[in-house]
C-alpha cells in the first residue's frame, strides 16, 4: 500500500493551537498544498494577520512577516513592490481585512497590486472572545451584539468581496466554503487560481473562505459546517464574483 494523502512540505508537521473544528487548520493545509504543487515554496512570502492565525508563520515552511492588525495588504504591497519575482500573499480574517484594514484592502485592490489574498470569513472575532465582525449576520448573537445584530444599531453584514469586485484593479474574486469535502476541494482550486494569477502577473486575486468558528458560534464542528451551508451561504453566496 502507498500513502495517497500526502502531508504538504510547506506545512510544518506540528500540532496547532486552533480550536477543534476550526477552519484555519484546513485552509493552512490547502495553501501549503497549493504552494507545493506550484513549486513556489522557496519564492513564497506570507503575511500573517492579527487574529487567531497570528502565529500562522509557525505553521508554514516559507518566509513570513507579521503585520499590524489590518495592515497586511500595505505590508504585502511593500514586499511585492521591492521583490516582484516573489509570490506574496496575505491571510486575513474579517476584522483584519474588512474592519480595521478596510482602507488598506480597498487601496491595494484599487492599485491592482499583483497579490493573492486569502480572506477567512467566520462572521465573528475569534481571538478576542467572540465579538461582532463586519460580516456577522443580522440576528447573530455575539458578545458585542448581545441581542443579535440589528441593522439599526450595527448596520448590515459587509459584502467586501462584492465591493472590491467593482474596482477595475481587481482581477479575480471568488467565494468558497469549507462545509464539505467537495467544497474544500473547490476552495483549494480557487486558492490555486489566486496563486497562479500572481505567477502570471494577472493582478489582485482574492478568495473569501466561509470558515467555521464552532467555539464562538456555540456549535459543534459539524453543526458549524451545517450553519455555513444552511444560513451563512444565503447571505454570502458562493461562486466567482469576478
Amino acid at each position, binding site marked *: 500500500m502507498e500513502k495517497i494523502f500526502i502531508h504538504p512540505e510547506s506545512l510544518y508537521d506540528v500540532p496547532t493551537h486552533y480550536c477543534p473544528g476550526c477552519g484555519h487548520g484546513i485552509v493552512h493545509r490547502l495553501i501549503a498544498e497549493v504552494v507545493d504543487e506550484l513549486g513556489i*515554496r*522557496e*519564492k*513564497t*512570502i506570507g*503575511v*500573517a494577520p492579527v487574529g487567531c492565525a*497570528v*502565529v500562522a*508563520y509557525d505553521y*508554514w*515552511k*516559507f*518566509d*513570513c*512577516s*507579521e*503585520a*499590524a492588525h489590518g*495592515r497586511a495588504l*500595505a*505590508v*504585502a*504591497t*511593500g*514586499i*511585492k*513592490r*521591492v*521583490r516582484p519575482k*516573489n509570490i506574496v500573499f496575505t491571510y486575513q480574517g474579517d476584522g483584519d481585512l474588512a474592519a480595521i484594514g478596510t*482602507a*488598506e484592502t*480597498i*487601496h491595494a485592490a484599487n492599485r491592482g497590486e499583483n497579490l493573492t489574498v486569502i480572506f477567512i470569513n467566520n462572521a465573528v472575532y475569534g481571538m478576542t472572545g467572540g465579538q461582532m465582525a463586519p460580516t456577522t449576520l443580522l440576528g447573530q448573537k455575539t458578545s458585542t451584539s448581545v441581542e443579535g445584530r440589528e441593522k439599526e444599531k450595527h448596520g448590515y453584514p459587509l459584502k467586501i468581496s462584492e465591493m472590491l469586485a467593482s474596482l477595475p484593479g481587481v482581477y479575480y474574486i471568488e467565494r468558497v466554503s469549507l462545509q464539505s469535502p467537495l467544497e474544500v476541494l473547490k476552495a483549494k482550486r480557487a486558492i490555486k487560481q489566486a496563486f497562479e494569477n500572481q505567477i502570471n502577473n494577472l493582478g489582485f486575486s482574492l478568495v473569501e473562505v466561509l470558515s467555521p468558528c464552532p467555539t464562538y458560534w456555540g456549535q459543534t464542528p459539524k453543526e458549524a459546517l451545517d450553519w455555513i451551508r444552511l444560513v451563512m451561504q444565503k447571505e454570502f453566496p458562493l461562486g466567482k464574483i469576478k
Partner: protein
Amino acid sequence: MSNKKILISGNEAIAQGAIGAGCNFYAGYPITPQNEIIAYMAKHMVNSGGVFIQAESELAAINMVYGASAAGARSMTSSSSPGISLKQEGISYIAGSQLPAVIVNIMRGGPGLGNIAPAQSDYFQATRGGGHGDYYLIVLAPGSVQEAYDLTQTSFDLADKYRIPVMILGDGILGQMMEPVRLSTKINKVSHQKSWALSGCLGRKPNIVKSFFLREGALEEFNISLQKNYEIIRKKEARYEGLFLSDAKVILVAYGTMARIAKSAISQLRSIGKKIGLIRPISLWPFPQAPFNVKNKKLKYLVIEMSSGQMVEDVRLAVCGRQQIEFLGRSGGGVPSEEEIINKIKKIL
C-alpha cells in the same frame, strides 16, 4: 564630495540625500510643510530604479515601509507632526521587528491640526519612542540644508547597522529654506541582501519578521536584547556641535533651526564682549550627555525651543542639578527671535 553645489530646499536635500544613499523604496502621503519631499521622490525615485508609492494614508505608508524593509530594501517615509502621530503604531512594529527604516518629520505647530508654521513640539514624541512599548529611535536634527542632506545619508547607514528606525527631525523653516548643497560623489554600494530579510527561503531556513513573543519570558528576553543595542548606540552615536564652551558664562542649548537663530544672538553678544556659548545637539536620541558634564557651578544654561519646553527636560537630566537652567520657548508656530534671546540672556547674566 564633488565641487559642484546645487541650490535646493531642505526638503529636497533630504530626498536627494536618501536617493544618493541607495534608498530604493519610498511611501508617503502629502502633508504641509513637507510636500516637496514626496514630489521629489515621485519625480526622481524611478530614475534610480526605486519604488515610489503615494499611499492612501500615513499609516498605510509606514506599513508599506515595514514590508519593504522586511524584504531588505532601504526604505523611507516622510510626514509632518499629525502624520507622524498616525505612523506611531507602524514605528513601534518596525522597532519591535528590528527593521531598518528612515522616517522624516518636518515639524509643524500642534497639538491637533495646529498650523503649518515651524515648531519643535514633537521632541517628546520622537525621543521617547512615540508609539507603545520600550523602544527608541535614533533621532537626528539637522541645522542646515547641507546637514539635512548629509544626515539623511547617515541615517540609512545607522538604520542598517543597528537594525533600528532612524528619524530625521526637521521643521517647516528647514524644510522650505534654500541653501547651496555639495552632493556626495561617494557611490553607495549598498546591499539589499540581508541575511534576516524576506527574500524567499531558497537555500536556507525560512525567515520570519515579527515582534510577537508569547512564550513565557520570551518578550522580556527580547526587550533586554533591544536595551543592550540601545546602550551601544548611546555610547557610539551621540552627536553635537559645541561653540565657545571653554569660556562661556551662559551656554545656549538649541537644535535645528533654533540653533541658527541662537548662533546669530551669540554672534551679536560676543561682539560686545559677552561670553556666550552653544551646545547644539545633533542627535536628540541618544542625547549628548558629554558636553553637559561640567563642574563649574557658576555656569548657566539657557534652553531655547520652538515649543513649551521638551528638550529642556533632557538638559535637566544631563546637568543633574549641577548648574542653573533657564528656558525660553515659543509655541504653536512661534519662533523666538534674536532679540528675545538676547533680552533673556541679559536677564540671566
